């Protein structure tokens, strides 16, 4: 297990193909630097991410999980992001149930034009998770 | 010094072990029955919505789930401040009585019966229901069938016979249709016929053979606890508590005042607590000079009630009292009393099924959560069962206290085991048959150790400690 000094959090990110993944690409194109702790998994829609993936990740050692989708109203599939938002509340409740700190999970809206915002979100989240220390499921 | 181990105690609801230590002369020094587990229902029910408890506490016991279910539902009624409609209450009563029937058959024929039917000295491999079925296929088949009829009736009436779900705060969730009633009635009649057969069979073929045993085995003198109707008639679903002293005098109280009458004593060598009548003085299990000890279950109920509400049962009660007096103290008479209760319940079931209100549609009133305390009590096969809940304003449980049938009998079982062992094992002589008789003393109480260990886990390991005459611990043997 990583000790506090060298702790590099592992954050799993689900990014929707149409907005956030494009936003992440844009951050790259614009060279906005952010910490290298995020592993992006491309999904078609934030509404596609089954909370089981989130809980599984967090209970199998991820230090943080991020779901990124289109801003409300901009979903490529009408309202998949609204479904994701509804599930977010359920996920937050389940974090309680699994004894996982709420800061380890985030749902963020990042549009295809928000490269800087994407970088900012990752910076913030990485620091927040780093401050928490390693996941208690990491043993 | 020698140690005898009977492990596990078989043909009871749960498992136990008896260890008997003999002193140098081969006589019994001392025995203790220890229960070594805790399940923690009283802890893990806290925080649950109170209306869910009837569906959680059933798992305290799979043999008598209905009684936990109903005590819990009754406590719920009080918590929510409602009274179930008459049909709802009658459906609960009906299910309780059917469950009683199955339970009596189970215990008498399948658990305790083989001792009497096959004989305590018969070979262990045939001394069981399978043995009975092979030796006497007709009876075996009847036993299996009639016990199962109870389950089938409950399946029809409530959908789920074991760990039921239909008793709900404010009544019952499923009405009984006329079609279902018509399906159940012949089954109930068959069970009544079997009940009549069973008591006749036992009186003719079983009890006479064991009159000696009845008089000697596990005989202790205690008080009794059971519930009765206002007029003193036996009442299983909704009576008041009657606490009888060994001399036959008694006190009555509404069961929601149980905390004033019953205390629970802790011994350092067992997780199972010892309820006792705290108004009678301090707790003591001294065989010669016991204190606070009372018993529950069939014999207790037969002793405390003045009469029984159904004709055949009343006749049997009168016959029983004529033979053994009131209160009868002989432990093995639990088995006799059990069959009288079987007759009563079989009759009561038919009575209820013929009640026109039983197929009514008003079965339930809706309820609204509130902060309250509710105590529910029924007579379970193994004794007076008390569920005591407290809730917050959302109806979530904040406190639970449970006292269940077998727990009441914790002290008496310990005492009976010791008495039996002392009486039978002399000069180091014992055999399989004698040891089985020690077990018979336990079986008579029909101890449901799963119930008793609601506080711990469901298995019923028992440990016997052997102490010398000065009470010093010489040896302990546990079955775990």
């Amino acid at each position, binding site marked *: 297990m990583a000790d506090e000094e060298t702790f590099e959090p592992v954050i799993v990110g689900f990014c929707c193909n149409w907005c956030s993944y*494009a936003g992440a690409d844009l951050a*790259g194109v614009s*060279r906005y630097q952010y910490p*290298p702790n995020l592993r992006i*998994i491309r999904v*078609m829609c934030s509404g*596609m*991410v*089954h909370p089981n993936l989130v809980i599984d990740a967090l209970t199998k050692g991820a230090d943080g999980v991020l779901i990124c989708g289109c801003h409300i109203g901009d979903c490529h599939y009408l309202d*998949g992001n609204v479904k994701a938002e509804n599930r977010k509340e359920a996920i937050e409740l389940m974090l309680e149930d699994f004894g996982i700190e709420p800061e380890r999970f985030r749902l963020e809206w990042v549009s295809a034009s928000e490269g800087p915002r994407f970088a900012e979100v990752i910076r913030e989240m990485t620091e927040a998770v780093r401050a928490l220390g390693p996941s208690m499921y990491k043993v | 010094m020698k140690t005898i181990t009977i492990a596990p105690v078989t043909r009871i609801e749960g498992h136990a072990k008896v260890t008997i230590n003999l002193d140098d002369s081969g006589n019994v020094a001392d025995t203790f029955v220890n229960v070594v587990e805790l399940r923690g229902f009283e802890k893990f029910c806290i925080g649950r919505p109170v209306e869910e408890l009837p569906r959680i506490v059933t798992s305290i016991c799979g043999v008598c789930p209905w009684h936990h279910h109903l005590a819990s539902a009754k406590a719920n009624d009080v918590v929510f401040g409602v009274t179930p409609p008459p049909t709802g209450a009658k459906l609960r009563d009906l299910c309780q009585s059917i469950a009683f029937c199955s339970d009596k058959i189970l215990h008498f024929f399948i658990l305790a019966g083989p001792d009497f039917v096959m004989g305590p000295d018969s070979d262990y491999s045939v001394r069981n229901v399978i043995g009975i079925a092979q030796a006497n296929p007709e009876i075996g088949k009847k036993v299996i069938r009639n016990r199962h009829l109870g389950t089938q009736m409950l399946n029809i009436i409530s959908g789920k016979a074991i760990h039921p779900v239909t008793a709900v705060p404010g009544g019952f969730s499923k009405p009984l249709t006329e079609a279902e009633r018509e399906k159940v009635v012949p089954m109930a009649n068959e069970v009544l016929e079997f009940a009549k057969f069973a008591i006749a069979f036992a009186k003719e073929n079983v009890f006479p053979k064991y009159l000696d045993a009845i008089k000697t085995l596990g005989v202790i003198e205690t008080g009794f606890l059971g519930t009765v109707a206002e007029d003193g008639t036996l009442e299983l679903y909704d009576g008041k508590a009657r606490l009888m002293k060994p001399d036959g005098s008694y006190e009555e109280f509404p069961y929601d005042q149980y905390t004033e009458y019953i205390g629970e004593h802790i011994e350092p060598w067992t997780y199972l607590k010892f309820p006792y009548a705290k108004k009678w003085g301090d707790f003591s299990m001294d065989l010669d000079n016991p204190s606070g000890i009372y018993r529950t279950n069939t014999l207790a109920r037969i002793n405390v009630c003045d009469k029984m509400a159904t004709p055949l049962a009343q006749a049997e009660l009168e016959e029983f009292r004529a033979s053994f007096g009131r209160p009868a103290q002989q432990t093995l008479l639990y088995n006799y009393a059990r069959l009288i209760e079987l007759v009563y319940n079989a009759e009561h079931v038919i009575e209820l099924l013929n009640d026109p209100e039983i197929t009514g549609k008003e079965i339930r009133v809706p309820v609204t959560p509130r902060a309250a305390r509710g105590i529910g009590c029924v007579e379970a096969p193994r004794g007076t069962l008390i569920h005591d809940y407290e809730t917050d304003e959302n109806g979530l449980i904040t406190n639970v206290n449970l006292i269940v049938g077998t727990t009441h009998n914790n002290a008496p079982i310990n005492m009976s085991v010791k008495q039996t062992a002392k009486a039978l094992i002399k000069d180091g002589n014992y055999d399989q048959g004698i040891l089985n008789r020690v077990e018979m003393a336990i079986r008579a109480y029909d101890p449901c150790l799963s119930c008793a260990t609601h506080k711990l886990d469901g298995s019923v390991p028992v440990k016997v400690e052997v102490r010398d005459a000065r009470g010093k611990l010489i040896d302990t043997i546990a079955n775990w």
Partner: protein
Amino acid sequence: MQKMITLTIDNKKVEVEEGSTVLQAAEKLGIKIPTLCHHRSLLPYGACRVCLVELKKSWGSSIQASCVYAAEEGLVVRTDSERVLKTRRMMLELLLARCPDSPRIVEMAREMGIEEPRFQKKNDNCILCGLCTRVCEERMGVGAISFVNRGSERKVAVPYDKHSPICMTCGACTVVCPTNDVDLSKVSLNKPRPVMSDYDMGLVQRSSIYIPFAQAIPKVALIDKTTCMHFLNDTCKSCENFCEAGAIDYEQQDEIEELDVGAVVLSPGFEQFDPDLKKELGYSRYSNVLSSLQFERILSASGPYLGKVLRISDEKAPGKIAWIQCVGSREVECNYCSSVCCMYATKEAIIAKEHAPDLDCTIFFIDMRAYGKGFDAYYERAKGLGVKYIRCRPSSVKEDSKTKNLKITYQAADGEILTDEFGMVVLSTGLRPPAEVRELADKFGIELDQHGFAATLPMAPVETSKAGVYVCGPFASPKDIPETVMEASAGAAKAMALLTEQRNTLITHKEYPPEMDVAGKEPRIGVFVCHCGRNIGGVADVPNVVEYAKTLPNVVYAAHNLYTCSTDTQDNIKEMIAEHDLNRIIVASCSPRTHEPLFRNTCREAGLNEYLFEMANIRDQCTWVHMHQPEMATQKSRDLVRIAVAKSRMLEPLKKGTLKVNNDALVIGGGIAGMTAAINLADQGFKVHLVENQEQLGGNLNHIHSLLSGDPQQKLKSTIEKVNAHPNIDVHLKSIVSAVDGSVGNFKSTIQHNGDGKQVSHGVVIVATGAEQYEPTEYLYGKNPRVLTQRTFEQWLSEDKAELKKAKSIVMIQCVGSRDEDRPYCSRVCCSEAIKNAIVIKKKQPETDVYILYRDIRTYGLLEEYYTEARRIGVRFIRYEEDKKPEVSANNGSFSVSCFDPVLNAPVTINSDLVVLAAAIVPGETLSEVGKLYKLSLNQDKFFLEAHMKLKPVDFATDGVFMCGLAHCPKSIEESIAQADAAAGRAATILSKDEIELDANISEIVDDNCDGCAYCIDPCPYNALTLIEYMLKGDIKKTVERDAALCKGCGVCQATCPKKGVFIRSFKLEQLGAMVEAALETG
């Protein structure tokens, strides 16, 4: 061929061309050496000495500047030895002492662990690196600046310390200076004029070679020849030294292509009104006065402040922002409404408040023209969020020169004159026809109107005066996005009808080899890792990633390529597929969003199913964002490849489904919208069933006798005739659709006529079921025959009713049934309808007093001139407020109408002979009935809900169903017609094909797991899932069926299902789960 030299740097061997420097060799290895005076397009100089390295030779070692030292055969170099670091640290310490305020130096020093120099600070920002003088000399060929003096007096200077007459003011010196020490204004005689970004509305600078904006397509750089020094002076050419791909082509010429076309659609858009023309508003004088488009950039995350709301003068939060509406609209010289400013200002205020919740937003306006669908609700939401609306047009803006705050003086609701101060003022600038349209119009021979917008034919919103030339968007008149999109589709539809015979003649098909069968075969994965020039290879250790990939399960081949997307690499991939029998391909390079199609195509060309391809995005999402952490970037690249391999192993070949399309259409509703759509489709050669529930065609238009643009009845008559005569149109009068089966491409609808049902097959549906007039319950309507609706009033006008003649005074009341609690929307057309009728009556009987009681006059776009006209000829407009509605009482054959005039701040009573009500447009029952049949959603006002409010205004979420006319929302007849053509155009995109290709990445039901619990039914945004039952082994099996034509593969069902009963191909839970697990592994 160039001679190659091998040397060793930090224990790694590298081969470079003879003449290369050690620095270049290190770069090739991806070893970072800090530099300051080095510049790729300038000659090596060796001034700053931060690029020092240690050279090991037989006789010992020496420290040398790597940027000038030429590589030698067998040279051994250390870039990170203690000696190097120590010397480099010393160099930086000296530099830091020299320029302690230069951010770049401070950062470099900090990276070396130096916070404070031990030497005395000199506060001279010039580090004498010579970049400025060299670029001026070497690249610009000018030498306007140079070093003067020697030793400690050495400095950069202009000869004789005067402004240089030869300086071209190109600014190259300021760009290359690492310490920002060059002040161009001291060098050049001319005033430096930075090149500003058009995309950022002049808020930020750009260079002369630039990518127009981050999401540009194609996303390639272009050279601005008007500012590029190479094109102006034949100098510089620096950029070509930086482009690894060698893509800079200074010889490229504009090309002229000639196309033969049969129709033209003109959509040159609009130009922003130049707010500088309103000097009183201070646009170019005051830094904190912005145009609305500039403010859009400020709000944007990709804008100058990354989405933070800051003002220009001090980059601080403005605190209070004011919007001034109608800047360049609704004026004498510009007598039209720009249509969009009210809503965009409201949107900007809401978003600004989202970015900074305590921001104070005030909008100064004349009338709130929230006439569009959902606009009033949005307006109300803004008010709810605390946006202040002040009905006043401020005459000027004044700046406080100290604070740079802006003062606005205005008249408050109660008439009081107030002055308020704002941190920022946004001018809601209007829309103008683009300057070049006159030339365009002349070329095509089309007419323009007095404002310069394209003139269209009456009742034909996209047709110009020239046949075959169509217009759409704000070129025809100011309009919002939905109308623009509708017109675009309408223009296309018109063109399609014209060109029906030529359809599909220009299509070519590509042939692919047969697909190899990979079923049941163990995955054999090939991984191709891309250097992308230096984009990836310059940061991550690509060979390391390749070696790692080889260790992953099922990977049988891994290699690296300089550019994986290059044509020769594509050929290589195909060869490797054949040589190694690869059945899964992974390319670790850039984003699948840009390159997946290319590689998929390569797979297909190699006979591999294209869905057996996966990408690892190690550039955009790794090396580009972790440029300064090469080790971490390498590690992350390994991780991303491992994740891709985990998924790749579970990939399955997929086939795109196809669906035969029935080429007939069903149009429900025989009003002007339905008929227009039907005619267009029929003209395109498709058979159309037109279903109308009334006895005659025409719908609401039957009741309309005059329009601002003339008499519509003639047009109606000709349209009906055309419908009835058209061989492709089958009219079903007095009929309704009673049952529907199927989906896009293959609908079966039952048309019920007089109790008889007839089933018709069709590929698309256009819903044009219209709307109804609200039956007022207020203002004595229905109780007094002289209280009438505008529609009846119009009837009277057309019949010249005697009652009209007698009327000395007529009061019109607006918003009857609109914009209230029950119907919180604007009926859009009532303002112009009332004004039209007022003008007619006023012109007929100038002595009659006509009053219009209104809440906002919403004569958007070019309708504004009629409002002006009405006022000019004496129609009286009195505003009332929602909570003080007018009261009408009848007395002795006339009415007394009282209301409260907020301008006079006093009650007003008018005697009137007629009261005319502007009754709302309300959705009828038909809407919800048809909606249920085709599973269409309604919005909260019970009109049909489009797939996207702005971008898909005629589409439903359900494929193959389109809408037009009033069923969508209240709108004018021209707008209905445009939308009808648009619907036909959209429908034709389906009907014109014989089969539709369906996406392969759609959902699939696992019948074994699904038990029809129904959780997925409602969440599906496309109604693609249906519960079904069938008999299985004697039991009823419940399950769900997916309509492949409707499913879009969003996966909401997959994330809902509690039992893995449905999945999205290529995004299965198991695949995503494997990716998560791979992400959590280390390796």
